């Protein structure tokens, strides 16, 4: 039930990690699927730094390389990324 979590830019720096595995079994009821909001809420409980980093305004979430809303469904094997607004070009 593992989901790959990726962190970029200031989030990666603030948390000192660029990638972790997250087990959906950690969530209440150990569901097979969950929405992005639930995963984000669970990760936010890992400490004050996670709480702050994941609740900054304008946080972007991408599921399998596509920007999604908090309601998107996350399943085993998915890749979920969190990052600040993009500033390329």
């Amino acid at each position, binding site marked *: 039930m593992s989901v790959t979590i*990726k962190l*970029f*830019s*200031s989030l*990666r720096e603030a948390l000192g990690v660029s990638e972790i595995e997250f087990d959906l079994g950690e969530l209440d009821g150990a569901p097979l699927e969950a929405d992005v909001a639930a995963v984000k809420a669970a990760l936010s409980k890992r400490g004050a730094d996670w709480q702050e980093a994941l609740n900054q305004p*304008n946080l972007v979430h*991408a599921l399998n*390389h*596509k*920007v999604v809303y908090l309601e998107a469904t996350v399943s085993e094997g998915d890749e979920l*990324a969190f*990052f*600040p*607004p*993009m*500033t*390329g*070009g």
Partner: protein
Amino acid sequence: MSVALQAEAIDVAAEYSALVGPAPGAAVATFTGYVRGESEGRAVASLELEHYPEMALRVLEELGQQAEARFQLSRWRIVHRFGQLGLAETIVWVGAVADHRGEAISACEFMMDTLKTDAPFWKREQGPDGGDWVGSRESDSQRRARWRSEG
């Protein structure tokens, strides 16, 4: 009709030749972005470009395909760098070929405005006073939004 993500400087002349090919379309527009020595009043000595490779490739390929359909492009190309960039080095290059000039030029503008806000790259500027992540700009979001409301 392709995307390149690369650490090396962009060879603008080679990209142009490859885009245009032996039988050019009528109208070819290009845009190149370079590292500026100044950003919002602060001196910049170099730039670090972090990126999310798999997503950047996907976003830019979809962007090129959207531009192709929207502006009837016969050819297009997007090249974006990542890693450490020195002053006055290339950051990004886009090129579009169409039958008419308006479409080629608008396609370049659309690709640039969209990749600025939608492609997963993050700039960190290094100056004499240290480095900092570049904030997103409201003006970029506004330029991006125009393409949602227009034609």
